[in-house]
Protein backbone atom coordinates (compact mmCIF):
# COMPACT_ATOMS: atom_id res chain seq x y z
CA UNK A 1 0.00 0.00 0.00
CA UNK A 2 2.80 2.41 0.93
CA UNK A 3 4.52 1.62 -2.29
CA UNK A 4 1.46 2.54 -4.28
CA UNK A 5 1.00 5.85 -2.53
CA UNK A 6 4.61 6.80 -3.06
CA UNK A 7 4.42 5.97 -6.69
CA UNK A 8 1.33 8.04 -7.38
CA UNK A 9 2.93 10.97 -5.57
CA UNK A 10 6.07 10.81 -7.66
CA UNK A 11 3.91 10.44 -10.73
CA UNK A 12 2.12 13.70 -10.01
CA UNK A 13 5.48 15.42 -9.50
CA UNK A 14 6.67 14.33 -12.88
CA UNK A 15 3.38 15.19 -14.53
CA UNK A 16 4.39 18.83 -14.42
CA UNK A 17 7.59 18.37 -16.37
CA UNK A 18 6.08 17.52 -19.71
CA UNK A 19 5.27 13.83 -19.23
CA UNK A 20 8.44 12.00 -18.36
CA UNK A 21 8.57 8.36 -19.45
CA UNK A 22 10.84 7.14 -16.69
CA UNK A 23 8.06 5.72 -14.51
CA UNK A 24 6.38 3.81 -17.29
CA UNK A 25 6.82 0.07 -17.46
CA UNK A 26 6.28 -2.33 -20.36
CA UNK A 27 3.10 -4.38 -20.59
CA UNK A 28 1.93 -7.06 -22.95
CA UNK A 29 -1.75 -7.72 -23.48
CA UNK A 30 -3.43 -10.23 -25.69
CA UNK A 31 -6.71 -9.19 -27.29
CA UNK A 32 -9.19 -11.13 -29.36
CA UNK A 33 -10.63 -9.15 -32.25
CA UNK A 34 -13.58 -9.73 -34.52
CA UNK A 35 -12.17 -10.27 -38.02
CA UNK A 36 -13.51 -7.04 -39.56
CA UNK A 37 -11.85 -4.06 -41.24
CA UNK A 38 -10.93 -1.35 -38.76
CA UNK A 39 -11.14 -3.53 -35.65
CA UNK A 40 -7.37 -3.40 -35.07
CA UNK A 41 -7.30 0.38 -35.24
CA UNK A 42 -10.28 0.53 -32.92
CA UNK A 43 -8.45 -1.73 -30.49
CA UNK A 44 -5.44 0.55 -30.25
CA UNK A 45 -7.43 3.67 -29.42
CA UNK A 46 -7.61 3.08 -25.64
CA UNK A 47 -3.82 2.85 -25.47
CA UNK A 48 -3.26 6.05 -27.45
CA UNK A 49 -6.09 7.91 -25.69
CA UNK A 50 -4.56 7.14 -22.30
CA UNK A 51 -1.05 8.20 -23.39
CA UNK A 52 0.46 4.77 -23.44
CA UNK A 53 3.47 4.30 -25.75
CA UNK A 54 2.92 1.60 -28.33
CA UNK A 55 5.98 -0.64 -28.72
CA UNK A 56 4.83 -3.43 -31.01
CA UNK A 57 1.76 -5.12 -32.41
CA UNK A 58 1.64 -8.72 -33.45
CA UNK A 59 -1.46 -9.43 -35.46
CA UNK A 60 -1.96 -13.16 -36.12
CA UNK A 61 -4.59 -12.91 -38.85
CA UNK A 62 -4.15 -16.48 -40.04
CA UNK A 63 -4.67 -17.98 -36.61
CA UNK A 64 -8.14 -17.88 -35.12
CA UNK A 65 -9.14 -18.54 -31.54
CA UNK A 66 -11.67 -21.32 -30.74
CA UNK A 67 -14.31 -18.59 -30.76
CA UNK A 68 -13.42 -17.55 -34.33
CA UNK A 69 -11.61 -14.38 -33.32
CA UNK A 70 -8.19 -13.11 -34.32
CA UNK A 71 -5.63 -12.93 -31.52
CA UNK A 72 -3.49 -9.79 -31.31
CA UNK A 73 -0.56 -9.18 -29.00
CA UNK A 74 0.17 -5.59 -28.11
CA UNK A 75 3.24 -4.34 -26.26
CA UNK A 76 3.10 -0.88 -24.80
CA UNK A 77 4.58 1.25 -22.05
CA UNK A 78 2.40 2.89 -19.44
CA UNK A 79 2.38 3.93 -15.82
CA UNK A 80 0.31 1.72 -13.51
CA UNK A 81 -2.40 4.33 -13.46
CA UNK A 82 -2.46 4.61 -17.26
CA UNK A 83 -2.40 0.85 -17.53
CA UNK A 84 -5.49 0.51 -15.35
CA UNK A 85 -7.32 3.16 -17.39
CA UNK A 86 -6.40 1.38 -20.61
CA UNK A 87 -7.69 -1.98 -19.38
CA UNK A 88 -10.89 -0.34 -18.16
CA UNK A 89 -11.32 1.38 -21.54
CA UNK A 90 -10.89 -1.94 -23.30
CA UNK A 91 -13.60 -3.49 -21.18
CA UNK A 92 -15.94 -0.56 -21.75
CA UNK A 93 -15.50 -0.88 -25.53
CA UNK A 94 -16.36 -4.57 -25.29
CA UNK A 95 -12.95 -5.98 -26.21
CA UNK A 96 -11.90 -9.34 -24.95
CA UNK A 97 -8.62 -9.05 -23.08
CA UNK A 98 -7.36 -12.58 -22.82
CA UNK A 99 -4.05 -12.16 -21.05
CA UNK A 100 -2.21 -9.28 -19.57
CA UNK A 101 1.50 -9.41 -18.99
CA UNK A 102 1.44 -7.84 -15.57
CA UNK A 103 -1.80 -9.24 -14.32
CA UNK A 104 -2.92 -9.21 -10.72
CA UNK A 105 -5.49 -11.90 -11.55
CA UNK A 106 -3.67 -15.18 -11.51
CA UNK A 107 -6.45 -17.73 -11.06
CA UNK A 108 -8.45 -18.19 -14.20
CA UNK A 109 -11.54 -20.38 -14.32
CA UNK A 110 -14.77 -21.03 -16.15
CA UNK A 111 -18.36 -21.30 -14.95
CA UNK A 112 -21.46 -22.13 -16.94
CA UNK A 113 -24.93 -20.70 -16.42
CA UNK A 114 -27.93 -22.68 -17.61
CA UNK A 115 -31.27 -21.00 -18.18
CA UNK A 116 -32.47 -17.94 -20.02
CA UNK A 117 -29.60 -15.57 -19.35
CA UNK A 118 -30.98 -12.90 -21.69
CA UNK A 119 -34.40 -12.84 -20.08
CA UNK A 120 -32.71 -12.43 -16.70
CA UNK A 121 -30.66 -9.43 -17.93
CA UNK A 122 -27.23 -10.66 -18.90
CA UNK A 123 -25.76 -7.15 -18.80
CA UNK A 124 -26.79 -6.82 -15.19
CA UNK A 125 -25.35 -10.26 -14.43
CA UNK A 126 -22.00 -9.30 -15.98
CA UNK A 127 -21.96 -5.93 -14.24
CA UNK A 128 -22.63 -7.49 -10.89
CA UNK A 129 -19.90 -10.07 -11.30
CA UNK A 130 -17.55 -7.28 -12.39
CA UNK A 131 -18.47 -5.19 -9.38
CA UNK A 132 -17.35 -8.02 -7.13
CA UNK A 133 -14.02 -7.46 -5.47
CA UNK A 134 -10.98 -9.27 -6.78
CA UNK A 135 -12.60 -10.57 -9.94
CA UNK A 136 -12.23 -9.81 -13.62
CA UNK A 137 -14.58 -10.98 -16.36
CA UNK A 138 -12.36 -12.09 -19.23
CA UNK A 139 -15.14 -12.98 -21.62
CA UNK A 140 -18.72 -14.17 -21.85
CA UNK A 141 -20.20 -16.48 -24.51
CA UNK A 142 -23.88 -17.18 -24.95
CA UNK A 143 -25.26 -20.38 -26.37
CA UNK A 144 -28.49 -20.64 -28.34
CA UNK A 145 -31.30 -22.91 -27.26
CA UNK A 146 -33.55 -25.03 -29.43
CA UNK A 147 -35.27 -22.13 -31.13
CA UNK A 148 -33.40 -19.22 -32.70
CA UNK A 149 -34.40 -16.50 -30.27
CA UNK A 150 -33.87 -18.65 -27.19
CA UNK A 151 -30.70 -18.53 -25.16
CA UNK A 152 -30.08 -21.58 -23.07
CA UNK A 153 -26.89 -20.74 -21.28
CA UNK A 154 -23.68 -18.82 -20.97
CA UNK A 155 -20.04 -19.38 -20.25
CA UNK A 156 -18.18 -16.89 -18.09
CA UNK A 157 -14.41 -16.95 -18.18
CA UNK A 158 -13.24 -15.27 -15.01
CA UNK A 159 -10.01 -14.44 -13.28
CA UNK A 160 -9.48 -13.79 -9.61
CA UNK A 161 -6.62 -13.00 -7.35
CA UNK A 162 -4.95 -16.05 -5.95
CA UNK A 163 -7.02 -17.65 -3.18
CA UNK A 164 -10.11 -15.57 -3.95
CA UNK A 165 -11.90 -18.13 -6.09
CA UNK A 166 -14.26 -19.50 -3.46
CA UNK A 167 -15.31 -15.94 -2.59
CA UNK A 168 -16.15 -15.31 -6.24
CA UNK A 169 -18.07 -18.58 -6.52
CA UNK A 170 -20.07 -17.67 -3.44
CA UNK A 171 -21.04 -14.36 -5.09
CA UNK A 172 -22.01 -16.18 -8.30
CA UNK A 173 -24.19 -18.57 -6.31
CA UNK A 174 -26.09 -15.64 -4.84
CA UNK A 175 -26.61 -13.92 -8.19
CA UNK A 176 -27.72 -17.06 -10.03
CA UNK A 177 -30.00 -18.18 -7.23
CA UNK A 178 -31.71 -14.80 -7.23
CA UNK A 179 -32.19 -14.95 -11.01
CA UNK A 180 -33.32 -18.57 -11.09
CA UNK A 181 -30.33 -19.63 -13.19
CA UNK A 182 -28.43 -22.84 -12.69
CA UNK A 183 -24.73 -22.38 -11.92
CA UNK A 184 -22.29 -25.06 -12.96
CA UNK A 185 -19.08 -24.57 -11.03
CA UNK A 186 -15.68 -26.03 -11.78
CA UNK A 187 -14.57 -28.91 -9.60
CA UNK A 188 -11.63 -27.64 -7.62
CA UNK A 189 -9.25 -29.10 -5.10
CA UNK A 190 -10.24 -28.91 -1.46
CA UNK A 191 -8.60 -25.99 0.31
CA UNK A 192 -6.83 -27.46 3.32
Amino acid at each position, binding site marked *: MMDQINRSESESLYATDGGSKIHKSAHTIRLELVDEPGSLLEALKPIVANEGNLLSIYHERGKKS*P*RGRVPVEVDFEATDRQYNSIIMAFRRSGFTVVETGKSQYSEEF*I*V*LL*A*GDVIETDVTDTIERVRDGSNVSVIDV*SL*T*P*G*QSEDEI*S*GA*RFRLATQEGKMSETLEMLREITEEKGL*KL*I*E*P*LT*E*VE*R
Partner: protein
Amino acid sequence: MRLVVIGTGSVGRSIAELAADYGHEIVGLADSAGAVIAEDGVDVADAFETKAADGTVGSADPADVFETSYDVLVEATTTVDDANPGFENAREALARDRDVVLANRDPVAKRFDELRELERNSDGTVKFGATVGGSLPIISILTDHRPSNIVSVRGVLNDTSNFILSRMAAEKLDYEHVLTEAKELGIADEDPSADVNGTDTAVKCTILSNMLSSYDESAIDDSITVDDVDTDGITNIPGSLLELAAQDSRTIRLIGEVNGNGVRVGPRLVPDDSPLAAEGAQNIVQIETTHSGTITLSGQGMDDHGTASAVFTDIDRL
Protein backbone atom coordinates in the same frame (compact mmCIF):
# COMPACT_ATOMS: atom_id res chain seq x y z
CA MET B 1 -22.61 -68.19 8.74
CA ARG B 2 -26.30 -68.68 9.37
CA LEU B 3 -28.21 -65.84 7.70
CA VAL B 4 -31.67 -64.38 7.96
CA VAL B 5 -32.58 -62.32 4.88
CA ILE B 6 -35.46 -59.86 5.11
CA GLY B 7 -36.67 -58.41 1.83
CA THR B 8 -37.16 -60.52 -1.27
CA GLY B 9 -36.97 -57.91 -4.04
CA SER B 10 -34.29 -58.29 -6.69
CA VAL B 11 -31.42 -57.58 -4.26
CA GLY B 12 -32.75 -59.83 -1.47
CA ARG B 13 -33.32 -62.58 -3.98
CA SER B 14 -29.75 -62.31 -5.37
CA ILE B 15 -28.38 -62.51 -1.82
CA ALA B 16 -30.51 -65.56 -0.98
CA GLU B 17 -29.65 -67.33 -4.20
CA LEU B 18 -25.89 -66.68 -4.03
CA ALA B 19 -25.46 -67.33 -0.28
CA ALA B 20 -24.58 -71.02 -0.71
CA ASP B 21 -21.84 -70.12 -3.24
CA TYR B 22 -20.22 -67.97 -0.56
CA GLY B 23 -20.46 -70.77 2.04
CA HIS B 24 -23.43 -69.38 3.97
CA GLU B 25 -26.74 -70.92 4.94
CA ILE B 26 -30.14 -69.19 4.82
CA VAL B 27 -32.12 -70.13 7.94
CA GLY B 28 -34.85 -67.51 7.58
CA LEU B 29 -36.26 -65.64 4.60
CA ALA B 30 -39.01 -63.05 5.01
CA ASP B 31 -40.99 -60.59 2.93
CA SER B 32 -43.68 -58.17 4.08
CA ALA B 33 -46.44 -60.82 4.06
CA GLY B 34 -44.79 -64.00 5.28
CA ALA B 35 -41.64 -65.98 5.97
CA VAL B 36 -40.00 -69.33 5.70
CA ILE B 37 -37.85 -70.55 8.60
CA ALA B 38 -35.75 -73.73 8.62
CA GLU B 39 -33.09 -74.64 11.21
CA ASP B 40 -31.29 -76.85 8.70
CA GLY B 41 -31.46 -74.39 5.79
CA VAL B 42 -34.20 -72.88 3.65
CA ASP B 43 -34.70 -74.28 0.16
CA VAL B 44 -34.31 -70.93 -1.61
CA ALA B 45 -35.50 -72.05 -5.05
CA ASP B 46 -38.59 -73.58 -3.46
CA ALA B 47 -39.29 -70.40 -1.47
CA PHE B 48 -39.27 -68.24 -4.62
CA GLU B 49 -41.55 -70.72 -6.39
CA THR B 50 -43.96 -70.33 -3.48
CA LYS B 51 -43.67 -66.55 -3.76
CA ALA B 52 -44.46 -66.66 -7.48
CA ALA B 53 -47.57 -68.70 -6.78
CA ASP B 54 -48.80 -67.22 -3.48
CA GLY B 55 -47.24 -63.76 -3.39
CA THR B 56 -45.12 -64.57 -0.32
CA VAL B 57 -42.19 -66.90 0.40
CA GLY B 58 -43.94 -68.84 3.19
CA SER B 59 -46.70 -69.01 5.74
CA ALA B 60 -44.65 -68.29 8.88
CA ASP B 61 -44.97 -64.95 10.74
CA PRO B 62 -42.19 -62.59 9.49
CA ALA B 63 -41.54 -61.52 13.12
CA ASP B 64 -40.54 -65.09 14.01
CA VAL B 65 -37.34 -64.93 11.94
CA PHE B 66 -35.73 -62.99 14.81
CA GLU B 67 -36.35 -65.91 17.20
CA THR B 68 -34.53 -68.46 15.09
CA SER B 69 -30.89 -69.38 15.64
CA TYR B 70 -28.84 -67.20 13.28
CA ASP B 71 -25.63 -65.13 13.15
CA VAL B 72 -26.35 -62.27 10.76
CA LEU B 73 -29.45 -60.36 9.69
CA VAL B 74 -29.24 -59.16 6.09
CA GLU B 75 -31.62 -56.22 5.62
CA ALA B 76 -32.80 -55.75 2.01
CA THR B 77 -36.28 -54.28 2.35
CA THR B 78 -37.69 -51.26 0.53
CA THR B 79 -38.49 -48.30 2.74
CA VAL B 80 -42.11 -47.44 3.32
CA ASP B 81 -41.70 -44.65 5.85
CA ASP B 82 -39.00 -43.11 8.08
CA ALA B 83 -36.33 -45.66 7.11
CA ASN B 84 -38.71 -48.45 8.09
CA PRO B 85 -39.16 -51.39 8.10
CA GLY B 86 -35.33 -51.52 7.69
CA PHE B 87 -34.53 -49.56 10.84
CA GLU B 88 -36.90 -51.58 13.07
CA ASN B 89 -35.54 -54.85 11.67
CA ALA B 90 -32.00 -53.73 12.52
CA ARG B 91 -33.18 -52.78 16.02
CA GLU B 92 -34.75 -56.24 16.57
CA ALA B 93 -31.54 -58.02 15.54
CA LEU B 94 -29.22 -55.75 17.56
CA ALA B 95 -31.46 -56.14 20.62
CA ARG B 96 -30.69 -59.88 20.40
CA ASP B 97 -26.94 -59.15 19.96
CA ARG B 98 -26.91 -60.30 16.36
CA ASP B 99 -24.85 -58.69 13.57
CA VAL B 100 -26.61 -56.67 10.88
CA VAL B 101 -25.54 -56.19 7.27
CA LEU B 102 -27.50 -53.53 5.43
CA ALA B 103 -28.21 -53.65 1.71
CA ASN B 104 -30.79 -50.94 2.43
CA ARG B 105 -29.42 -47.38 2.55
CA ASP B 106 -32.13 -45.56 4.42
CA PRO B 107 -31.30 -46.52 8.03
CA VAL B 108 -27.76 -45.13 7.47
CA ALA B 109 -28.79 -42.09 5.43
CA LYS B 110 -31.74 -41.07 7.58
CA ARG B 111 -31.30 -42.42 11.12
CA PHE B 112 -27.57 -42.86 11.52
CA ASP B 113 -27.21 -41.58 15.09
CA GLU B 114 -30.00 -43.84 16.36
CA LEU B 115 -28.49 -46.80 14.54
CA ARG B 116 -25.08 -46.15 16.09
CA GLU B 117 -26.68 -45.87 19.53
CA LEU B 118 -28.37 -49.25 19.10
CA GLU B 119 -25.07 -50.73 17.98
CA ARG B 120 -23.24 -49.34 21.03
CA ASN B 121 -25.74 -51.06 23.32
CA SER B 122 -25.46 -54.39 21.53
CA ASP B 123 -22.81 -57.06 21.08
CA GLY B 124 -23.82 -57.07 17.43
CA THR B 125 -22.14 -54.97 14.72
CA VAL B 126 -23.66 -53.04 11.79
CA LYS B 127 -22.02 -53.11 8.35
CA PHE B 128 -23.20 -51.11 5.34
CA GLY B 129 -20.47 -51.42 2.69
CA ALA B 130 -23.01 -52.51 0.08
CA THR B 131 -24.98 -49.28 0.27
CA VAL B 132 -22.52 -47.08 -1.67
CA GLY B 133 -20.83 -47.78 -4.97
CA GLY B 134 -22.06 -51.36 -5.33
CA SER B 135 -19.08 -53.55 -6.02
CA LEU B 136 -16.59 -50.66 -5.67
CA PRO B 137 -15.05 -51.10 -2.21
CA ILE B 138 -15.34 -47.42 -1.27
CA ILE B 139 -16.35 -47.94 2.35
CA SER B 140 -13.72 -50.68 2.84
CA ILE B 141 -11.01 -48.29 1.65
CA LEU B 142 -12.26 -45.49 3.87
CA THR B 143 -12.28 -47.87 6.83
CA ASP B 144 -8.85 -49.30 6.07
CA HIS B 145 -7.26 -45.86 5.81
CA ARG B 146 -7.33 -43.92 9.02
CA PRO B 147 -10.37 -41.72 8.51
CA SER B 148 -8.29 -38.81 9.89
CA ASN B 149 -6.19 -39.26 6.75
CA ILE B 150 -9.16 -38.71 4.42
CA VAL B 151 -9.41 -35.14 3.10
CA SER B 152 -12.32 -35.61 0.73
CA VAL B 153 -14.33 -38.11 -1.22
CA ARG B 154 -15.85 -37.03 -4.48
CA GLY B 155 -17.06 -38.49 -7.69
CA VAL B 156 -19.75 -39.89 -9.87
CA LEU B 157 -21.98 -42.12 -7.74
CA ASN B 158 -24.92 -42.48 -10.07
CA ASP B 159 -24.42 -44.43 -13.27
CA THR B 160 -27.72 -43.38 -14.87
CA SER B 161 -26.91 -39.67 -14.77
CA ASN B 162 -23.39 -40.37 -16.00
CA PHE B 163 -24.73 -42.31 -18.95
CA ILE B 164 -27.11 -39.46 -19.81
CA LEU B 165 -24.50 -36.68 -19.58
CA SER B 166 -21.86 -38.56 -21.53
CA ARG B 167 -24.32 -39.52 -24.29
CA MET B 168 -25.58 -35.91 -24.49
CA ALA B 169 -22.02 -34.67 -24.94
CA ALA B 170 -20.85 -37.36 -27.36
CA GLU B 171 -23.92 -37.39 -29.62
CA LYS B 172 -25.00 -33.73 -29.24
CA LEU B 173 -28.43 -34.90 -28.12
CA ASP B 174 -30.86 -33.31 -25.71
CA TYR B 175 -31.69 -34.59 -22.25
CA GLU B 176 -35.16 -35.98 -23.01
CA HIS B 177 -33.89 -37.89 -26.04
CA VAL B 178 -31.08 -39.57 -24.12
CA LEU B 179 -33.33 -40.34 -21.15
CA THR B 180 -35.71 -42.22 -23.43
CA GLU B 181 -32.77 -44.16 -24.85
CA ALA B 182 -31.50 -44.96 -21.34
CA LYS B 183 -34.91 -46.36 -20.40
CA GLU B 184 -34.99 -48.52 -23.51
CA LEU B 185 -31.56 -49.89 -22.67
CA GLY B 186 -32.66 -50.67 -19.12
CA ILE B 187 -30.04 -48.25 -17.69
CA ALA B 188 -32.63 -45.79 -16.38
CA ASP B 189 -35.62 -46.87 -14.30
CA GLU B 190 -39.12 -46.09 -15.50
CA ASP B 191 -39.12 -43.38 -12.81
CA PRO B 192 -35.55 -42.06 -12.85
CA SER B 193 -36.23 -38.96 -10.75
CA ALA B 194 -33.99 -39.90 -7.79
CA ASP B 195 -31.12 -40.59 -10.21
CA VAL B 196 -31.38 -37.38 -12.22
CA ASN B 197 -32.39 -34.93 -9.50
CA GLY B 198 -29.34 -35.79 -7.41
CA THR B 199 -31.19 -37.47 -4.50
CA ASP B 200 -29.63 -40.90 -5.01
CA THR B 201 -26.14 -39.34 -5.05
CA ALA B 202 -27.04 -37.26 -1.97
CA VAL B 203 -28.10 -40.39 -0.06
CA LYS B 204 -24.81 -42.14 -0.90
CA CYS B 205 -22.76 -39.07 0.06
CA THR B 206 -24.67 -38.83 3.34
CA ILE B 207 -23.68 -42.40 4.13
CA LEU B 208 -20.01 -41.68 3.35
CA SER B 209 -20.07 -38.52 5.43
CA ASN B 210 -21.73 -40.29 8.38
CA MET B 211 -19.33 -43.17 8.15
CA LEU B 212 -16.36 -40.75 8.34
CA SER B 213 -17.93 -38.63 11.08
CA SER B 214 -18.18 -41.63 13.39
CA TYR B 215 -14.39 -41.61 13.79
CA ASP B 216 -12.88 -39.25 16.34
CA GLU B 217 -10.09 -37.74 14.26
CA SER B 218 -12.04 -37.34 11.07
CA ALA B 219 -12.21 -34.08 9.08
CA ILE B 220 -15.99 -34.42 9.37
CA ASP B 221 -17.37 -33.63 12.79
CA ASP B 222 -21.10 -34.20 12.81
CA SER B 223 -23.46 -36.76 11.36
CA ILE B 224 -26.04 -35.51 8.88
CA THR B 225 -29.20 -36.68 7.17
CA VAL B 226 -29.89 -36.50 3.47
CA ASP B 227 -32.01 -33.37 4.04
CA ASP B 228 -28.86 -31.48 5.06
CA VAL B 229 -27.26 -31.99 1.65
CA ASP B 230 -27.16 -29.12 -0.84
CA THR B 231 -28.53 -31.06 -3.82
CA ASP B 232 -28.94 -30.17 -7.49
CA GLY B 233 -29.61 -32.43 -10.47
CA ILE B 234 -29.08 -32.58 -14.22
CA THR B 235 -32.64 -32.30 -15.55
CA ASN B 236 -32.41 -28.73 -16.88
CA ILE B 237 -29.00 -28.90 -18.52
CA PRO B 238 -29.37 -28.15 -22.24
CA GLY B 239 -27.24 -30.10 -24.72
CA SER B 240 -25.78 -26.83 -26.01
CA LEU B 241 -24.19 -26.19 -22.62
CA LEU B 242 -22.21 -29.42 -22.91
CA GLU B 243 -21.02 -28.20 -26.32
CA LEU B 244 -19.93 -24.92 -24.75
CA ALA B 245 -18.03 -26.87 -22.09
CA ALA B 246 -16.41 -29.00 -24.80
CA GLN B 247 -14.94 -25.87 -26.44
CA ASP B 248 -12.76 -25.52 -23.37
CA SER B 249 -11.94 -29.25 -23.19
CA ARG B 250 -14.29 -29.72 -20.31
CA THR B 251 -17.47 -31.61 -19.68
CA ILE B 252 -20.28 -31.68 -17.11
CA ARG B 253 -20.69 -34.49 -14.58
CA LEU B 254 -23.06 -34.98 -11.64
CA ILE B 255 -20.60 -34.90 -8.76
CA GLY B 256 -21.09 -35.72 -5.11
CA GLU B 257 -18.54 -34.15 -2.79
CA VAL B 258 -17.88 -34.98 0.86
CA ASN B 259 -15.32 -33.03 2.88
CA GLY B 260 -14.86 -31.00 6.04
CA ASN B 261 -17.00 -28.19 4.58
CA GLY B 262 -20.02 -30.44 4.21
CA VAL B 263 -21.69 -32.43 1.47
CA ARG B 264 -22.67 -31.09 -1.94
CA VAL B 265 -24.26 -32.72 -4.97
CA GLY B 266 -24.64 -31.02 -8.32
CA PRO B 267 -23.47 -30.74 -11.91
CA ARG B 268 -19.86 -29.57 -12.13
CA LEU B 269 -17.36 -28.68 -14.84
CA VAL B 270 -14.68 -31.35 -15.09
CA PRO B 271 -11.64 -31.36 -17.42
CA ASP B 272 -11.96 -33.88 -20.26
CA ASP B 273 -8.81 -35.64 -19.15
CA SER B 274 -9.94 -36.07 -15.53
CA PRO B 275 -10.75 -39.63 -14.42
CA LEU B 276 -14.10 -38.21 -13.30
CA ALA B 277 -14.97 -37.47 -16.94
CA ALA B 278 -15.19 -41.20 -17.74
CA GLU B 279 -18.08 -42.01 -20.03
CA GLY B 280 -21.04 -44.34 -19.77
CA ALA B 281 -22.92 -46.13 -17.00
CA GLN B 282 -20.09 -45.99 -14.48
CA ASN B 283 -19.22 -45.03 -10.95
CA ILE B 284 -15.95 -43.14 -10.44
CA VAL B 285 -14.77 -42.09 -7.01
CA GLN B 286 -11.69 -40.16 -5.92
CA ILE B 287 -10.56 -40.44 -2.33
CA GLU B 288 -8.13 -37.68 -1.47
CA THR B 289 -5.85 -38.57 1.41
CA THR B 290 -3.31 -36.59 3.41
CA HIS B 291 -0.41 -38.98 3.03
CA SER B 292 -1.29 -41.43 0.28
CA GLY B 293 -2.27 -39.10 -2.55
CA THR B 294 -5.49 -39.53 -4.43
CA ILE B 295 -7.00 -42.97 -4.85
CA THR B 296 -9.34 -43.36 -7.82
CA LEU B 297 -11.83 -46.21 -8.08
CA SER B 298 -14.00 -46.84 -11.08
CA GLY B 299 -16.26 -49.56 -12.29
CA GLN B 300 -19.59 -50.56 -13.63
CA GLY B 301 -22.62 -49.25 -11.85
CA MET B 302 -24.33 -51.40 -9.31
CA ASP B 303 -26.54 -54.33 -10.25
CA ASP B 304 -28.23 -56.83 -7.94
CA HIS B 305 -25.38 -59.34 -8.09
CA GLY B 306 -22.83 -56.60 -7.39
CA THR B 307 -24.78 -55.54 -4.32
CA ALA B 308 -25.10 -59.16 -3.16
CA SER B 309 -21.37 -59.63 -3.58
CA ALA B 310 -20.71 -56.50 -1.48
CA VAL B 311 -23.03 -57.89 1.22
CA PHE B 312 -20.95 -61.08 1.39
CA THR B 313 -17.78 -58.98 1.67
CA ASP B 314 -19.34 -57.23 4.69
CA ILE B 315 -20.26 -60.60 6.22
CA ASP B 316 -16.65 -61.78 5.81
CA ARG B 317 -15.48 -58.67 7.68
CA LEU B 318 -17.66 -59.29 10.74
